[in-house]
């Protein structure tokens, strides 16, 4: 990540001393020890990250009980799979990605549950006021808004392709355009989504390197 400061910025990573205290141990070293079933390294990783992961999930679920389960699950899996895990983008990245997937899995469950209830003949009351529900609705609105910013043809193609799983050939027939044009619109739609996100992406990266 390039900073705007034009001067040369340097950071030096010092080697940890032989008997250096454990707080200076890097994540890579902890990950390495973890793979060798070093339980002290596991505890250290837990102490270092449990609250950050808890809060990371809590900000998106607003439900402490669920977050407790999520943190538990992340660390149980970390220990169970310690020998086979490859932390290609670092331990911290692995943990936060695991937390993000757990949260999104919660949303997915909520959606599936709702669809199931709505489809059942009993037509049970759906509680749309729970915190999770608020987040799911917010995500849905966010996506709808983004898709709404696409030019009309692009938008139709995107919806037919990515949301209704129509093939390019089917879309061409529905919209009376050539398959080639469908491809063009789809590429443009995906690019637009990415460009629209440019600024936010920058913030996300800054957050991760903090």
């Amino acid at each position, binding site marked *: 990540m*390039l*900073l705007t400061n*034009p001067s*040369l910025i*340097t950071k*030096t*990573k010092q*080697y*940890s001393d*032989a008997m*250096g205290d*454990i707080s200076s*141990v890097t994540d890579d070293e902890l990950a*390495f020890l973890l793979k*060798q*079933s*070093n*339980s*002290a*390294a*596991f505890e*250290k990783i837990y*102490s270092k990250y449990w*609250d950050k992961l*808890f*809060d*990371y999930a*809590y*900000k*998106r679920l607003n439900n402490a009980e669920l977050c*407790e389960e999520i*943190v*538990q699950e992340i*660390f*149980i899996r970390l*220990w*169970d799979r310690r020998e086979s895990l490859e932390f290609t983008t670092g331990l911290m990245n692995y943990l936060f990605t695991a937390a993000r997937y757990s949260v*999104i899995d919660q*949303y*997915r469950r909520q*959606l599936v549950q709702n*669809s199931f209830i709505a489809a059942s003949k009993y037509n049970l009351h759906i509680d749309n006021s729970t915190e999770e529900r608020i*987040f799911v609705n*917010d*995500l*849905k609105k*966010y*996506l709808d808004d*983004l898709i709404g910013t696409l030019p009309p043809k692009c938008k139709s193609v995107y*919806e037919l392709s*990515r*949301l209704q799983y129509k093939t390019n050939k089917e879309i061409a027939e529905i919209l009376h355009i050539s398959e080639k044009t469908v491809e063009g619109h789809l590429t443009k739609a*995906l690019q637009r*989504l990415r460009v629209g*996100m440019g600024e*936010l*992406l920058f*913030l*996300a990266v800054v*957050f991760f390197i903090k």
Partner: protein
Amino acid sequence: MNEIQLSELLDRYLDGTCTSEEKQVIDNWFELHEDKPGFTESLSDENKEQLKLRIFNAISHEDEIKSSPKPAVRSLYKSWWLRIAAAAVLLVFAKVIIIDIVLTPAKFPETAVTDMVITNRTKNIIKQLLPDSSVVWLSPDASLSYPKIFAAASRNVTMQGECFFEVTKNARRPFIISSEHIITKVWGTSFRVLDNKAVSAAIVTVVTGKVSVSKRGSNGERAGAKLAAGEVMLLPKEEVIYNKNTDLLVASKQADISAVNIYKHIDLLFENARLTEIVDVLNQKFDAHIKIQDEGLNKAVMTADLTGLNLPEVLEVLKASMKLNYEVTNDLIVLKKTN
């Protein structure tokens, strides 16, 4: 987008089949909530500690059920502080460079048919990855021999010339280096040895970590993974010199470690920096002696974010991006223009 479509999109996100654009959109939405208040930060220290312990106990309990026969799991219950002390000892890191300049043709008596032999005939520093993920940096003219698969009991390699080792930690499989005059055993993680036949001296310098050194043919060589009488144990910033004339290993407590600083891993950020500026920074940060041979290179400009690289790696980046090559002669590194 209806609910089923959204749940299908999340499905695709979770099994990794959504497009990178869709993933980005969801990730971005995710980060929008980062500034919200967390839960644990609102708790008192006491309550936070309780929650921490409760979740940890649940994790340990789960482990006990799933894999109780494994002793490694049971050790989770030992005293917290004892465990941390143990980790501090285990995290000993070592840096050693071995220089064993030999004028006679390469010979590797222990070499089995399946061994890999690599000799650096370039003027660059070459990086070689070993089967256990350890890394060896070979200076010009250095040779290294290692098996395709390391033995279960120990990891044995043979070398000549100057090599810098970054050895992965494995207490049960020590890393043992045989060179012309000495045997170097790594008890920590990485290290430097200098064994120079030409001047009849061998030097091992430890920057950080733990390394033991013994003479060829001594008890130490036969002891393998054990520590034997006559072996010199070195801790950080210590050095041992083997003198061929006196046949003695002499330890020194205060070593000059500036020579191994080029193997430090450093973060560097260059924004429209001229090569002259870059060289100044590299010389300062790595204690190096880099010179630019061709004036035409002076005005070359580079923008780069280099994270966690040592000097040989930085030189590779310069090579790839600035039409130059470098030559290492002893301490001196000369940058030359290429076509």
